[in-house]
Structure formats: structure tokens, C-alpha cells
């Protein structure tokens, strides 16, 4: 880890300025620091300045008739222990609770969870100057790719590691970003980028911007949601495949359904579930739907099992809500 300057702004207006530096000098945002410290210690990044945003008063959960607003530095534990989130935005609470361990959830923030960098073994290995780091080769293509993408990959095949992201997309969240020109708001569904759109960053947040708030509109009455995550270990593990599902059934018929997969593609993978709308949700239909979602999956050498796994997550996720 190299020496760096540590700044602690108390005013959001100052942040873009602090993040904009001359060429060759890099600043990064620090919230919980969970992923950032790993990146620093592994020498993945060598910033000259860390901009701590924890003094900005962005740790809040505000419920209203319209929905819920959560400041970017709200911790994952805050989300898990908020009764209204557990009740109304269940997928988000379950996703937050599935992250790492209690100690990490006590420090890790919702903003950081969305902006964390991928866990690809080549990306994390200092020795590998892969495509994502400006090199010429994606080492995962012929390498160790058990944990890589089965959909949406190319030229880089990471999976997006965030658990909360699929849940937020399934719940139609929007994300507020603060930059030099003020604020902009993007739907969570448009927040993430595929490598073919931008190889070097996983989100639309520019280096002089910072995520400040997440808003989820109140779901229509009768909506239920869940987040199902498959991991190898009971804790401290990323998703091999996960599914966030929001479902509204009226009179036995599906009125609205959202299915977003985690751990299988370079960004949270939104499935087109319209075929289920207007139908009675049966196991048979859900299995057929899962097969369609994975129909174009392109697994690598070691991760074909993730196709089966993803179908299982979809099936179980949807059926859990019926």
C-alpha cells in the first residue's frame, strides 16, 4: 500500500472538487472501506487521495408514502435491522443480510456494495495486467473460470459481486449521483454497464462523482419479494448464482414479476419475465421461463454448472413467493 492523503469533507458540495485532480493523480471515494482496503492492500489501486464520505450525513433510512430513501453510507446492518425494509422491501433486506459476515455488514455500506469491484482472480492478482486493467488479454477465457460469467460476458467475463444490486433492480430503485454539475438520478437498472459498453468501470459513476442516495418506490399492495443466494459457504462468500424476485399475484394470476440474477453476468442480469404475466404461476411455467432466461448462456470451461444453478435459483425464488 502506498502513502496517500486522507480527506474528510463535511460538505457534499466539496466532494466532486476533491475527487477531480490533475492528470496522473487519482482520488477515490471511501465509505465503509471494506472493498477499498482490499484493493489498496492488494496494490490494485494506488490512489493519491482517499475522500472519506462518512462525515456527510448520508447514513439514513427515511420511509414515506412514496417509498424509502437510503443514504449511501447506510450500513448493510442498518438495512437488515429496519423492520419496514424487512416487511416491504424484503428482497433488499435479504440481499443485505446475505453479504459476507456480521462484522462486515456492520461497516459495509449500501453505496459501497453497489460500487465494489469484481472478485475475478486475475483482476485481483497484481501480476495480471488483464483487459480490465488496460492489458491485452482476458486471462479468464482460457484460465480458472469456475466463478466467472455465463451470460453477458466478453471481452471481460467478470460477474458483478453485489448482492443488493439485483434486489434494488427488481424493486425498481433509482440511484442518485452527485458530481461537478450537481445531481443526476439513474434507474438501478441502468446503473451497471457491461464490459462491451465500458471495459474499465462496472457502473455509470464517473471518477469525480459519488453515489449519495438510493430510492425505492413503494411496491404496489400485494407485492412480495425475495433474494435467494447460492454460495459455497454459509458466510463470507459471494454468490455463485442468485436471484432477486418481486412478484404480485392477484386472484391467482401473476400481475407483475421481476427477476434479476446475480453472480452470473458482468452486471445484474434482468430477465424478461413478461411471459409469466397474466398466467397462473406453476412450477412448469417457471421452469420453462428459467430455461428461456438461460437459453443463450455461454459458459466457459469450468462453469457450466452455473447454468443449472441459475435455473434452480429462478425456480426456487419465484416459487417461494407464490
Amino acid at each position: 500500500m502506498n502513502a496517500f492523503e486522507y480527506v474528510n469533507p463535511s460538505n457534499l458540495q466539496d466532494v466532486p472538487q476533491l475527487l477531480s485532480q490533475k492528470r496522473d493523480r487519482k482520488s477515490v471515494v471511501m465509505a465503509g472501506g471494506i472493498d477499498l482496503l482490499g484493493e489498496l492492500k492488494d496494490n490494485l489501486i494506488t490512489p493519491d487521495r482517499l475522500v472519506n464520505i462518512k462525515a456527510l450525513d448520508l447514513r439514513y433510512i427515511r420511509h414515506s408514502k412514496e417509498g424509502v430513501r437510503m443514504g449511501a453510507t447506510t450500513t448493510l446492518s442498518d438495512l437488515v435491522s429496519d423492520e419496514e425494509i424487512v416487511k416491504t422491501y424484503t428482497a433488499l433486506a435479504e440481499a443485505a443480510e446475505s453479504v459476507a459476515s456480521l462484522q462486515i455488514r456492520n461497516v459495509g455500506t449500501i453505496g459501497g456494495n453497489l460500487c465494489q469491484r469484481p472478485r475475478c482472480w486475475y483482476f485481483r492478482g497484481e501480476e495480471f495486467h488483464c483487459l480490465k486493467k488496460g492489458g491485452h488479454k482476458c486471462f479468464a477465457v482460457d484460465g480458472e473460470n469456475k466463478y466467472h460469467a455465463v451470460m453477458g460476458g466478453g471481452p471481460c467475463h467478470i460477474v458483478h459481486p453485489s448482492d443488493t444490486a439485483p434486489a434494488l433492480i427488481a424493486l425498481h430503485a433509482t440511484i442518485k449521483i452527485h458530481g461537478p454539475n450537481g445531481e443526476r438520478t439513474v434507474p438501478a437498472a441502468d446503473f451497471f454497464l457491461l464490459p462491451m459498453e465500458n471495459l474499465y468501470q462496472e457502473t455509470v459513476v464517473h471518477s469525480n462523482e459519488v453515489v449519495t442516495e438510493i430510492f425505492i418506490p413503494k411496491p404496489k399492495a400485494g407485492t412480495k419479494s425475495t433474494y435467494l443466494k447460492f454460495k459455497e459457504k454459509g458466510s463470507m462468500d459471494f454468490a455463485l448464482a442468485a436471484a432477486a424476485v418481486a412478484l404480485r399475484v392477484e386472484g391467482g394470476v401473476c400481475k407483475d414479476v421481476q427477476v434479476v440474477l446475480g453472480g452470473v453476468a458482468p452486471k445484474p442480469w434482468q430477465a424478461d419475465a413478461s411471459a409469466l404475466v397474466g398466467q397462473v404461476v406453476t412450477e412448469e411455467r417457471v421452469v420453462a421461463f428459467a430455461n428461456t432466461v438461460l437459453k443463450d448462456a455461454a459458459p466457459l470451461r469450468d462453469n457450466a454448472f452455473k447454468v443449472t444453478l441459475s435455473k434452480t435459483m429462478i425456480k426456487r425464488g419465484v416459487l417461494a413467493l407464490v
Partner: protein
Amino acid sequence: MATQEEDYLGITDYKVIGTRPIRHDGVDKVTGRAKYGADIDLAGMLHGKVLRSPHAHARIKSIDISKAEAHPGVRSVITVKDLPLQEDQIKDLGEGAANLMDLRCNVLAEGKVLYHGHAVVAVAATDANVAEEALDLIDVEYEVLSPVLTVHDATAEGAPLLFENQTTKSLGEDTGKKSNVTTHFQHKLGDVEAGFEKADIVVEREFDTATVHQGYIEPQNATALWNADGQVTVWCSTQGAFTVREQTAQLLDLPVSQVKVVPMEIGGGFGGKIRVYLEPLAAVLSKKTGRPVKMVMSRTEVLQATGPTAGSYIKCKMGVTNEGKIVAAQATLMYESGGFPGNWAAPGSMCIFSPYNIADVQIDGYEVLVNKPQTMAYRAPGATNAAFASETVIDEICEALGADPFEFRLQNTSKEGTRRADGPTFPRIGNEECLQLARETDHYKSKLEGKARGRGVASGFWFNAGLKSSASASVNADGKISLVEGSTDIGGSRAALAMQLAETLGLKSEDIKPQVADTDSVGETDVTGGSRTTFATGWAVHKVGLDIKAQMIERAAKLWEVAAEEVSYVDGVLTNSADASKQMTFAELAGKLGETGGPVMGRATVQPPGVGGAFSTVIVDVEVDTETGKVEILRASIIQDVGKAIHPSYVEGQMQGGVAQGIGWALNEEYVYREDGTLANGSLLDYRMPTCLDLPMIETHIVEVPNPGHPYGVRGVGEVPIVPPPAAVANAIYDAIGVRLFDLPMSPGRVLEALLKKD
């Protein structure tokens, strides 16, 4: 010399042994006051860091340290040239031997780097960050070579050689054939071919197991001070202060007495904290700077560059008659040595068929160099890999015969008098008793119902070690005893030793104050390894107790003016047998030592021969999620012969710990190397060790068949519990879903793929 039969005292009414007192180091540990190596802070201390190889296999063409040396805050930069040359000589480290030439080239590479993370340069600077900055300023020019990463790659025709002049020693003879295979050995019992001819059923299978790490929670660390008078002190985390002293002194070309090693509290070892990595570097850096130098590894360094245990390839064949008698067994064991020669197929071969009485056996072992860190012991090193193979084959045989796995094992069990293929004949052992109890456990008798659920069992053997131990103790005026011993305490051994001394003297556990001493303060003591401490150091403290007892009797005799023979010593009370009204407690007499000739001390050094081998049997219930491949452990029980459980809680803890690690080995853990030989998962986030959420409460059943070679019957408990779990889990998975897995780990991806293949 006393025969082994006489060593066991046969006591039936223990006062202290078998109880569960609070451990002596408990308060320090739970309040965070216990001092570990990383807590050391000395005046003027520098911090050291190591530059490691980014390549798995490369020739070092040049090393330029000039920029690092010039960096502000840097005090010294060293390479292998700063370590004295070594002869090609083998030194015994207590559990596993080391070649000093290899050891030198392992702590700092010479000429070639042999694995990703191999140390190349060490730096001392005013703080750890400056030292790390300096590493970036060192230019090492490499000529990158192709690596070999498995025993299969390493033994393939035309495989790149780690050492150009390495030839295979086969059955003690140098074959002259250049190869990555350093050693081939063989054990033979009877005539294996004739044996197989008698068999009605023969099962032969091949197995591959991944390289795995012990995963001790405390990373390696060392602080050294090379004083102006030439005396060197090393503080470190080790399983054996004396082996660190020996290795460090040899590598620095110093007489052993010039090096003092202070063992700090240790956060786990499991066999991995025996070889030195940082100690000689910290010492040399201290010599060059005149200041104490502290070095602490990161988790990534621990995984990349300390000794994991060997991955392996095993071929195992067994033959039985229709009546269920095992008539022949044969195995080929090829184990990874890592970047330097190792010997883990050897202990594997001593264990593989030892739970059974088989007339005709042949075992061939091969130690194979690969571009991975030099492998090290891990709880019954070599035996777990071997049992995964043999106990899976046994399971298939039971299935073919339609036999109950315990009935079959009981029919073939090894017992007192059974000859092991590697030579020794078993003294009294508790294999049969374990199997009998296992069959009667509530777990085994319970019905397992439900889809994709299965039960598996497996047995394991570990021979345990004896080696050298020393202890001394002084009697305080208040009747309490200060015990000084040389075995570093990994799993509660201070308590287990204090309790044995208390038993011998008829005192209470809390009357003894045990302390682990540095190498200048106690006699030579081998590592806490080989499950030997409670056995061998226990022997030493028992003898210390006898020594003290004899002296106390003499003192009482003096006070009462009678012959020593007239004084009896029972349960810590001394009585004049001529005049029963004259009685003194141990404490009362302790208060009168001044008037009877001065202080009393007891001492003993031992090298006990009566090592008692250990057996364990594990029963595992699993549920396999056939849509995800995830194996959930529903229930796990271990039945183990421990000889005698001194402190049953810590014995149970050892049994549970071993099973937990065995399950991690079975299901998740593996070193993943990228094709260029670099370690892909060098963090505990990516190297998946189980947490408590992944395991049920592990049920323990202690069997006590006393070891005839120990006064209290102790065998040693630490290692054998890890041996059966991978096989038991594999057998349970087969029972659940009808798919046999021959490779470790049996991770969800593997299970799912095996299921897809089956359908």
C-alpha cells in the same frame, strides 16, 4: 528398561485426570492479554518485509537492490548471499526433517525461484510501509520457465525439472535418472499378487486430492535481536522453540547456545509452524542494523509461501473374498513435495491400510517436486489423502458384498499383534473398540430419511510421535508448584500437563502454575506435533512429580527422624507409618522446606518409546441439493481412541476441530493455481474454509483403551480426527445420490457436474 506393560499404572480412581478444570491460560486468552508475536514492540525496532517471486518457476538473472537501499527509511536489504552457505545435510525437525541447503534456498531464493511467492529479497526499514515501498524499488530480472503444478505434470515425459541434477532415489538406490521424483519407496507384506488371486472381488480406483492449507488463524511472525555480544534472541509463533533455534542457528552458522528462542502464544499451527521462514531473515537484518527487526506475514504470504499440505494422486486396489475377508491391498501414492524435496507419501503409506489386518500388501510411494511452496505437515500429514482413497474403496467393497460397514471393518480390524505393511507390529490399540462403539451410537442407530440424504462412515489411523521432552518444577512455600516446560501450547497442553503433575502429586490442577519456557530456561523439547505433547511431555511432568514426591518424602522423614521408607505419601498427604498421628499435607511440608535443607525442585527429560497409535471412526450424514450440488452436513460423529482423556473438554475440542478441518478439505478447500503457476486464491475470501455456519455440532465419543507405554495410558489426540472425514463425506454423498466422487474437494460445481454426467 521397563517393559511397556509396566509403564501403565492402571489407576482406576483418578482425582484430577478426567475432570474439566478451567485452563491456566484461559483468562489471558479471553481478555485479550495473552501476548502473541505480532504484539511485540521493542525500543528502536525496525520492520521487515519480503519481496516475493511473481513467477512459479524462473531463473533469477539479476537482482538490483541499490534503489531500495537508497530509499529514505530503509536500513538494510538482504539476499541469499547474506546467509552462510550450507552443506547438503538433513536435520531432524521433530516432525519431518529438513535439508539445510534447501532450507536456505527456501527462506531466500538462490539462482532460481521455485514457486509463486518464493522469498527473494528482505528489507528492514523504519516502518512497515516504508519497507513495502522499498520492495517496489527492487529490480529482479527473471528468465521465466514453465512450471509443473501437479504430480501428473511433474512426472510427464519431458516435464521441466525444478532441479536440473535431480535424480530419483528408488528403494534406497540412486537410479541416476533425471526426474522431479526425488524418492520412490516400497513397503511389502506377504505376496500381493498371490493375495489378489484369492480375492473374489477386487476394486481399484484412482484419486486426486487438492493442495490445502492448515489455515491457522495467526500468520507467521518473527522478531529478532542480534545483540552486540553476538547473542541472538528470536520471538516467534512456533510449534517448537528448539527446532526454530536449531534451524536458525544452522542457517546463521552459529552455535545453538548463542540463539535463544522465545515462543510467544500461538494462534494455531496444525503442523505448519515448524519450518522457519522469517526467523533467519529477521536475525540477519538485525545483525546488519544493530536493531531489533520484526516481520509479520500477510495472509496472502501465508497462503503463497508457507507450507500447505501435499496434494496427491493415489491409486488404490483391494481384494476381498465373498466371505468378507480382505486378502490383498495395493496402493501407489504420489505426493507433492512442493518446490523442495519432501516426505509426506511416507507417513501416508504407514497409515493407508493400517486399520485392517491384511496378509498381502504392497505400497509404493513417490515424493514429487512441483512448483508450489514446499509442503508441510497438516494434522496426520499424508494420512487423510490416503484414507480418502482406501476408505472409499472399502465402501465400494461393502456395497458389493452387501455388508454393514462396521461389521465388515470389525471382521477385518487390526488389533494387538497385527503387523503393519511398513513393519511395526501393533501393541494394544483401540481400533476394534472404536468400531464397536460406533456401531452402537445413537447416530448410527438412528434412521436417516429423506430424499438425497445419505450416510457415510470411514476409519483412520495415525501413529503419533514420542520424541524428546523436558520439564522442571519448583515447590513454593505455599505448597503451589511452578511448572516450566518446553512444549508450546496450541490446544490446551498447559492444562493437560499441569493436571498430570497434579495427579502424580495428589494435588489439584489449580495448585500447579504451568509455563512454557524459552530455550534457555528449559531442557530440549521437540515440537508440539505428532500428537506427542500430552503423551511425551506428560511423561516428563509425571517423572518430575515422582522426583518431587521422593524429595518431599525425604524431607518429612528428616522432620520426623524416621527412615524414608516409613513415610507414606497418599493424595498429597504425608504420613509417618510408624506413628499415624504424625501427618502433614504437601502444603504444610512445603512451608517447612527451609528447615529441612532448602528448596525442592523436580526435573526430568524423557524420550519415551511407548508411543500409542490412534484410531478414529467418523459417521457423517449429508443432504445433497441435487439442483445446486451443495452438500450439507446434517450430522457428524467421531469415535476416537484417545488412550486416556486428561482434560476431556480439550480432547473433544481436538476431535471436533479435526473433523471440521476434514470437512473443509472434503467440500471446499483447494489451492487454485492459474496456468502460469501463480496462486489464484491467496486470501481467505477466495480460499474457502468452512465457518461455523457450514458445520453441525460435531458429536464426540471418547474411547479409552490405555496406551501401555504411558503411566496414565495417554495416546495423543490431535491428528487422527482429520483422517476419516473426507472419505466419510464421499461415502455419504454416494449413499445420498449414487454418485462416487474420486477428487477433492467435492465442491458444488463438481457434484453438480457429476450428477449431470450420471443422468
